[in-house]
C-alpha cells in the first residue's frame, strides 16, 4: 500500500498530523499543563516538517537545519516560561483554597473570565502597601 510514497512524503504527512493534533488539543483543552504540552507537540510537528523538507536534497539543507535548531532553543525557552507561570497560577490557587475554603475551585478557570482582568479583586490587593 505504502510503496507509492517515498520516505520524505511519509515524514511530511506525519509532521502535518502531529501539528494539527497539537493545535486542536491546544484549542480544546482547559488544563493549563496539557495546553503547554499541546503547544510543545505543535512545535515538534512544525520542526519535523522543516527537517523533512531539509532532507529532500542529497546533502541536507543547512539553512533549514539552522532554523530547526533555533526553533528547539526557543521551544525550551517558552516551555520554561510557561511552566513557571503555570506553577505560580496553581500555587496562587492553592493559597486561595487554603485561605478561602468556600471558594469554588472552578471559579478561576482560565477563559471563563476572558473579558476582564482580575488584578483588582479585593483579595489581590490585600497585601498591597498603597
Amino acid at each position, binding site marked *: 500500500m505504502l510503496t507509492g510514497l517515498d520516505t520524505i512524503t511519509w515524514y511530511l504527512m506525519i509532521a502535518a498530523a502531529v501539528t494539527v493534533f497539537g493545535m486542536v488539543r491546544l484549542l480544546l483543552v482547559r488544563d493549563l499543563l496539557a495546553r503547554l504540552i499541546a503547544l510543545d507537540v505543535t512545535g515538534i510537528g512544525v520542526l519535523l516538517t522543516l527537517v523533512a*523538507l531539509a532532507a529532500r536534497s542529497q546533502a541536507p*539543507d543547512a539553512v533549514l537545519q539552522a*532554523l530547526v535548531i*533555533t526553533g528547539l532553543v*526557543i521551544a525550551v525557552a517558552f516551555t520554561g*516560561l510557561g511552566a513557571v*507561570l503555570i506553577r505560580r497560577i496553581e500555587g496562587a490557587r492553592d493559597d486561595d483554597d487554603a485561605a478561602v475554603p468556600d471558594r469554588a475551585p472552578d471559579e478561576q478557570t482560565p477563559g471563563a473570565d476572558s473579558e476582564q*482582568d482580575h488584578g*483588582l479583586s479585593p483579595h489581590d490587593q490585600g497585601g498591597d502597601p498603597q
Partner: protein
Amino acid sequence: MIPVWSALAEFSLGAVVLAPLLAAAVSMLVPLPARRVLGAAVGLLVAGLVVPLVVSVSAGEVPELVLGGFEAPVGIHLRADGLGAVFLAVTALVGLVLTGYAAVLPAAEGRCAGPKGWQQGHPGFWPLWLGCWSGLNAVVVSGDLFNLYVGLELVGLTAVALVALGGRGSWEAALRYLFVAVLGSLLFLAGVGLLVSVTGTLDIAQTREALAEVADPEAPLLALVLMTLGLGMKAALLPMHRWLVPAHSSAPSGVSPILSGLVIKAALVVLLRAWLWAVPLSGGAQSHAAVQWLAWLLGALGAAAVLGGSVLALRQTRLKPLVAYSTVAQIGYWFLAFPLLVSAEHDDALAAGAYGAVIALAAGHAIAKAGLFAAAGLLKDRYGTDEIAALRGAGAHHPALILAMGLCAVGLIGLPVSLGFTGKWQLATAAIGAGQWWLIVVLAAGTLLAAGYLLRGIAPLLLQSEDEPAAAKPVSVRERLGESAVMLLGLATIGTGLLGAWLGDLLGVGAWW
C-alpha cells in the same frame, strides 16, 4: 552624504540591536536603583544612535551591515530602509519616554512579592524591557526572514514576562498571551521554512528574486497564508484578539504602553515585510487571484475589528480595558488597507498611498496609545482602581494629565493635526482612487465611535465629583514627573502630525516598488 555619517549609520545599525541586549544582560547584575539609571542611560544612547540612521535614510541611502562579513544566505544582514527608519524612530521616541516614566514611578515596573507582602517596583522590569527593545529594533532592521523570526520571538517572550510582572492577577493573562504568541510564531516559522525549501535562501531580497522565477505558486502561497495567520494572531486581528484585552489591561502601568504601542507593531512590520518585500505578488495570474482573495479577507476582518472593537470599547466600565479595546479597533485600520496594497491593476501610486496610510496610522497609534495607556496606568496606581465611575472628578488633581490624555485622544480619533489624521486622509484618498467607497464608510464610523468611547473614558474625569475623592493625599513629585512623560507623548502626537509629508518621502527609500 558625508562619509562620516554613512560610517556612523552603519555602526548604529548594529548598535541599536546589540546595545540594549548587552545592557539587558548587565542590568541582571546590578541592584534595582542602578538598573533604573542604566535603563535611562541606554534609552538615551539608543535614541542618539537612531539619529544618524534616520538622517542617512532621509538623505536617500539605505545603510546596510553584514555582521562578521558572512554574506547572505548564511550571514546576518541588517538593513535600514524607510520602513525600518520610521519604526526605529518611533520606537526610540516612545521607548525613551516610557523608560523615564518607569524610572520615576516604581508602580509602573510592576509588583513583586517581598517579605512584607506585595511591593511596588519589580527589578525584573529592566532586563526584560531592554531585551524587548533590542528585539523590536532587530525586527525592523532585519534583512532576512530568520532574524525576523528570532526578533519576533525575543519580543514575544519578553512581552509575556513583562505582563507577568503585574502580580498574581496578571499571570493567567500572561500565560494565555504566551500560548497565542508562540503558536503565532510557530506558524510563521513553518511559512519561513516552506519559503526556504523553495528558494534555498533566507535573505528577503534573494527570496524575492528566487520566487519571481518559481513557476509553481502553491508553495509560496501556502507560506504566505501560514505567515499571515501566525502574524494575525500576534497582531490581535479581530477573531484572534481575545488574548489582548486581559494581557494589556492587567499588565503593570509601565508595560501596557509598551505592549499596545510597540510590541503589536513588530508583528505588523513583519507582515508588511512578508507581503510586500519577500513574496512578489505579481507571480502567476492564479497566485495573484488567491493573494487578492486573502487581502480582501484581511480587509473585511479589519473592518470588523474597527467596528466591533470600538463598540466593545464603548461598553467598558473600566479605563484600561477601554483603552485595550481601542487598540483592537485601531489594529483594524492597518488591515483595512490590504486590499488596496495588492489591487489587481498593479497601481503603484495607489499601493504607495495605502502603504503610507498604514505606516502613518501605526506610527501615530504607537505614540498616542502609549500616552493614553501610561495615563490610565498612572490613575489606576494612584487611586487603586480604574473604574471610570470611581475616577469621577479625579481630573481636578491632574489638570496636565487630562490635557495630555486629550492630546493623545486627538491622535486616536484622527483629528488634525496628528498622524492619525494623516493616515486616515491618505487611506480615504487611496480608497476613492480605487473606487472602494465602503472603506470611507468604515473610516467615518470608526472615527465617530472612537470619539464616543474616548469621550466616555475621559469626560468623567473632568466632572465635579459629589463627594471628595479618596485621594486627598497630595500628588508627589514622582507622579508629576510621570504626568510630564504622558504630556511629552501627547505633544509628540500633535508634533508628529506635522511630519506627514516627510514621512511619505522617507517611506519611499528602499521601498519594494
